[in-house]
């Protein structure tokens, strides 16, 4: 166990230095007043974790996601407003009315099948719903709100 974890760290350092992981990346949450707060992987890991298994239209088979629910992050940030504008690394953005955000879902996933996600595979942060749990999560709107490579949450009044 110990060796394998050491080995994996060494291997990741030696064989895949170009693979950009979560370190260095964070989700910035900006309030309506202009103030903002950054949520790093560490910060997120310290918040209450939510996990579920589901299939998605972008992946093969059933996968397990874990992370922090959107409502928990917004609570933690302490901003309130009408809409959350979610932006991705490629500047894709979509608006999410605050009233429609569930208590548990969606989550900002930090891990898929227990591993962090590289940018090359929609990481490091991915907004996901438990699509199999409810047909309402398999709508166009839900798919549009499933922002991957999430980088910023802007709360608008």
């Amino acid at each position, binding site marked *: 166990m110990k060796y394998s974890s050491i080995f994996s760290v060494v291997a990741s350092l030696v064989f*895949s*230095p*170009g*693979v*950009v992981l979560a370190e260095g990346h964070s989700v910035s949450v900006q309030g309506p007043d202009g103030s903002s707060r950054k949520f790093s992987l560490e910060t997120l890991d310290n918040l209450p974790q939510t996990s579920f298994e589901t299939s*998605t*239209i*972008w*992946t*093969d088979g059933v996968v397990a996601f874990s992370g922090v629910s959107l409502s928990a992050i917004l609570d933690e940030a302490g901003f309130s407003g009408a809409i959350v504008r979610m932006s991705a*690394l*490629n500047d*894709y953005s979509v608006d999410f009315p605050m009233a429609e955000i569930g208590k548990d879902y969606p989550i900002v996933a930090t891990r898929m099948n227990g591993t962090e996600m*590289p*940018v*090359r*595979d*929609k990481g490091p942060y991915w907004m996901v719903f438990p699509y199999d749990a409810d*047909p309402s999560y*398999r*709508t*166009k709107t839900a*798919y*549009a709100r499933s922002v*991957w*490579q999430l980088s910023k949450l802007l709360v608008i009044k």
Partner: protein
Amino acid sequence: MIKRFAIYGAISGLTILLILLWSGLPGQLRAILIAETDDTQWTVFQLETEFANLSVALAQAENAPAPDSSALRFRTDITLSRVNLVTKGLGRDLWVESPEAREIIARLEGFTRASTALIDKLGDLSKQDIVRLSALTNSLRPDVRRLAILGVTLGTEAKEAERVAFANQLRGVGFLAIVLIAGIVGALLFLDRLLVRARSKDDALRATADRLSSTVTASLDGIVISNQAGEVIEFNEAAVGIFGWSRVEILGQKMSATFVPQHHRSAHESGMERYLSTGDPHVIDAGRIELSALRKSGEEFPIELNITSTQRDGEKVFIAYIRDISERKINEQKLVEARDRAERADKAKSQFLTVMSHEMRTPLNGILGVLDLLKTTPLDKKQQRFVQVAAASGEILLENVNEALDITRIESGVMSLSPDEFSLRATVQRVADVLRTLADEKGLSLEVDIDTSMNGSFFGDGSRINQILTNLIGNAIKFTDEGGVTVAVEGIHGPETTLVRIKVRDTGNGIPADKFEAIFEDFVALARSEGRQNRGDGLGLSISRKIARLMDGDLKVDSHNGDGSTFTLSVPLLRVATEFSETQPEARHVSSEIIKSVLIVEDNAINRSVLREMLTGFGHAVTEADNGLEGFKKAQGTKFDLIIMDISMPFMDGIEATRRIRQGNGPNAQTYILGLTAHGREEYRSKSKTAGMDGFCTKPLRLSELKLTLSGIRENDRSGTSLEDPIALEVIDDLRKALGDTKTQQTANRFFAELKEGLGALAQKSPTTEATVISEMVHKLRGSAGLLGLQSVENALDRASSIEKTEDYLAALKQAQTEADAAAVAIKSFLSPSDG
């Protein structure tokens, strides 16, 4: 009922189908709403955008002095993350159907491997790396562009197919819904019609019930309805009228305590019980029956009853239709009594006539017999005339009595026919020949025209036809003063029978049309309107018609007043194909010359003495017996030459006596037995023949008839006259019957005078030179001789006409004269010897 089930079934089926189709709809609807593939298209566009972004970033880095490796790596990672989207998940499924897309994706995967190898190197990217990455990126841009377009196309197609399927299903559901609605509407209409019909039926039922109750009330027949206990529960107006109880009085009362008569009550109760326990109906449903019932007043009366049973409110009730038939019964009784009275009266009349005619004939027998005998005694002219008048009156009286008896016998059905084979031609000819004398006397012609097809033999009662014809031709002569009488015989030939039609036409005064039927009625029905005798005065025509009808024929008259009358007798007769050749028992021949001893068996003393006088007058020895038994006894002891046997006698009748005499080897087993019977008892003829009688005579036995019979006995056959006989006595007898003794004698006298004159004239002729004249003269004389049955004269004349030698010719003429003289003597003795 079946129709209704079919409709319900169809609606249920449609509903189930609709539910099944509809249950598929939400799924499809969800599929459309979820639109998972939509996102794929969006992803493909993103891929193209990212390739463009990467291309731009790489181009800038190529020209920059110190390119930012990490920024290029970041940009490349983002692009590669988009490539993942089209190679995995739903994105990959989109391309399965398109080989072109799969090829592009294979190249994209190649790009991923190549670019990953470049950017995953340690340290900064060299200029060369950047240029290579840029070239890789740019080379794939057209493919990415193509993939984006393909994505749109494929996605749209998939979408379209889904939409079409959905639309089809929607259409199906819609169609089914329409059908279902139509079906429901139809079912509603049907149910509505059922409802309407049920309502109208209900109305009709109610109307029927109303009508029924009014029918019961208004019925002319009494209607009484009772329950199982026999209590009256309905009693209509007519029943009130019949029985006398009012409705209020009788409702709830037991039938057995009210209108069922006392003596029927126990039977009524047990009948009800039996029916209720066994269901075995006796009176119920048995149709109309007649019973008696009791009125309130206690009077019992006959009713006609018809009981039916039915269910009412779950209980059996009995409905009785009752008709008071007391009046009808009384009328019926009256009718029966009237009929019986009429029958009794009719019977009494017939009996009276029969008895009377018998009672009258017995003394007539004596009178006529004695008168005959009286004529044989020496009388002066005056006495002769008196005797003649008395005899003629007696004969008329006898004829009337005979006719009356005939009528009675026909009406009471006693008269029967004795059909036998006979020659119609001979019968007609004989009657005409007999009556020609009468016609000649009045200067009338009598012509007979018999169709040649009627020459054969027929089977029928010839003597009855003879009787009718004698009456018809006799009448025709009697009522014609000028002209003549024609008898025409013809027939319509069927397969076996011939409808014989004999027309007797005269040229007399004729008969008015309104009397056509009256002349056939019994003389008692006609009133004499003038002094002159009319047709129908006697019973002749009435009897003739009755006999004709008895033979299944008829007798009709057609006449024009002043232009004569035609009587037509039509009778169906069986034709006989072959000659009658039945072998008859050898006849017993008796010659009058050899008759010496005669046994008379007759119960009536007067008749016996008359007969004895006649026979002793002929020179016979007579023995008498006054009944059959005594006659038989006497016949056992002595041999007789002739036995004259009355048929109806006390102790033993003539038939039985004859049978006994014929049995065994008594002395008289072969003796000629002559039967005697009352007139109109022809039915005894065959019986007596079977018993063994040889001849048959009808009372009263006249002297001439007895003589004829005695002389005819030698050849016990009417037609079998011997050639040697000077005269055929039965021809004279026929004449006598038609004309009477006196006229017959006159006719004979006239002929003998004519013959004498004729023979004298013939003697002057020469047979060698005047043969034709002789032949004509002889022919005329021969005809007259034939009419009188003078066969010996005929034969002599025949010989004379065929001889050429003069002396032989004269000898023949002389012979004819001799024969004629002998015949004259014979006729004179046959008829009343003193007369004429």
